[in-house]
């Protein structure tokens, strides 16, 4: 690599990472508890457990489930009801004043007895909901998401440029060398390079899928205004009708249409996942892969008739595949643990990067020397560049 291109890549690496570092540090720190959100929820008592019934009881009527929840807040309307794949005993009902209400009420109802179990802590309690907000949008909604998405883009640039710089820095070193005895800066430079190259693929995937996730709201809006609008063209100028159709029957219709699939959630008319006239029944498969995919079934909320069961467009499928790759929630406890280890490794990379920048006095010098070694007619007795930028440690 010529000294000029080395300097260029160095400049790209320095500025792309310096700008995003503080936010990446925030994302790493808030992401760490989010990896273990289920476990933390249990620990804090914010995770709802299904009550143990004395006799096995089949699932009850979903309309009764919704009615039980509404008794707590008669003035509010259901926005979503959902079920986790491994906890079919519970319906999570969210009640709200309107269909874009951020201050909704979550209520856990027993799917069998149709009685309310508890009104759980909002979004997993104050601690977890704060972590989530800081991780997702910095409390700033779509603008915060897109901003963090841009920071993720800078991270990807920093990763690529860092990988380009790896080879000139390693020309004189075996893989894994950490020169601890020379100077503190040299030690951290070696650890930065080592951890950077070791976590490279993982961090790139997590960064890229994180960026993709910041565009989820936009993708959903696009979907509604395009594919969804075409499917529902016949409803375009229809006057609002009362949503009197049974949700229970709607779910049964969806199950009959897509046998073998389970209901993940039902979106009520007016939410981002349905139309003004439909219940959006979102079904999951039960294979490891298809359980990540959603297949919506649109049921007319007035007549109860099935309108359509459209496949999701490719970009929403891509989003759904990208989500587990970001969350690390698809490989059991070991994967969570390794996600946490790699997260901590990333924190070390970020911290050492800042440290190397602060102690940058001799950095340019070192880069130039490293580059000089690329050219064959280097002075014969020249010492290895990065080995000898020695400063008292």
């Amino acid at each position, binding site marked *: 690599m010529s000294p000029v291109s080395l300097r260029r890549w160095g400049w790209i690496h320095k500025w792309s990472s310096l700008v995003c570092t503080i936010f990446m540090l925030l994302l790493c720190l808030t992401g760490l508890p989010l990896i273990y959100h289920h476990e933390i929820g249990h620990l804090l008592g914010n995770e709802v457990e299904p009550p143990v019934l004395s006799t096995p009881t089949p699932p009850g009527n979903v309309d009764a489930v919704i009615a039980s929840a509404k008794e707590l807040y008669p003035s509010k309307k259901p926005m979503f009801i959902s079920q986790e794949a491994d906890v079919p005993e519970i319906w999570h009902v969210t009640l709200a004043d309107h269909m874009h209400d951020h201050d909704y009420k979550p209520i856990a109802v027993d799917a069998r007895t149709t009685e309310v179990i508890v009104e759980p802590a909002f979004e997993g309690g104050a601690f977890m909901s704060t972590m989530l907000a800081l991780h997702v949008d910095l409390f700033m909604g779509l603008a915060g998401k897109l901003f963090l998405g841009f920071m993720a883009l800078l991270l990807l640039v920093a990763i690529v440029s860092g990988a380009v710089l*790896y*080879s000139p820095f*390693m*020309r*004189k*070193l*075996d*893989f*894994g*060398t*950490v*020169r*601890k005895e020379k100077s503190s800066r040299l030690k951290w430079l070696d*650890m930065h390079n*080592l*951890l950077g*190259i*070791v*976590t*490279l*693929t*993982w961090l790139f*995937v997590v960064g890229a899928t994180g960026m993709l996730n910041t565009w989820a709201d936009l993708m959903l809006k696009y979907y509604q205004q395009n594919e969804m609008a075409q499917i529902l063209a016949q409803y375009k100028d229809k006057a609002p009708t009362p949503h009197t159709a049974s949700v229970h029957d709607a779910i049964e219709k969806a199950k009959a249409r897509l046998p073998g699939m389970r209901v993940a959630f039902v979106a009520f008319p007016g939410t981002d996942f349905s139309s003004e006239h439909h219940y959006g029944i979102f079904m999951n498969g039960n294979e*490891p*892969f298809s359980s990540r995919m959603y297949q919506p079934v649109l049921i007319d909320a007035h007549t109860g008739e099935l309108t359509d069961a459209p496949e999701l467009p490719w970009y929403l499928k891509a989003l759904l*595949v990208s989500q*587990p*790759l970001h969350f690390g929630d*698809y*490989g*059991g406890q*070991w*994967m969570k643990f*390794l996600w946490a*280890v*790699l997260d901590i*490794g990333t924190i070390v990379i970020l911290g050492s990067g800042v440290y190397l920048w602060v102690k940058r006095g001799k950095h340019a010098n070192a880069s130039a020397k490293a580059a000089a*070694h690329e050219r064959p007619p280097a002075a014969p007795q020249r010492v*290895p560049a990065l*080995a000898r930028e020695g400063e008292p440690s």
Partner: protein
Amino acid sequence: MSRSPMQIWGAPIVLAILTTIGLVSALLGDGVWDALSAVTLGIPCLAGAWYCLRRRPAPRANG
């Protein structure tokens, strides 16, 4: 003495391939797929931790 590109990139490429296998395999299934993922993702983690934490660098490390 300079390292050849293969000497520089050999280990990183192996770790990248292992990481990719680890990320994809757990998507494909549970049980043995998750175990494969844990091993292949675990190796880069162990490599990073081992080289950062070991006391003495290898003899040739000062190249």
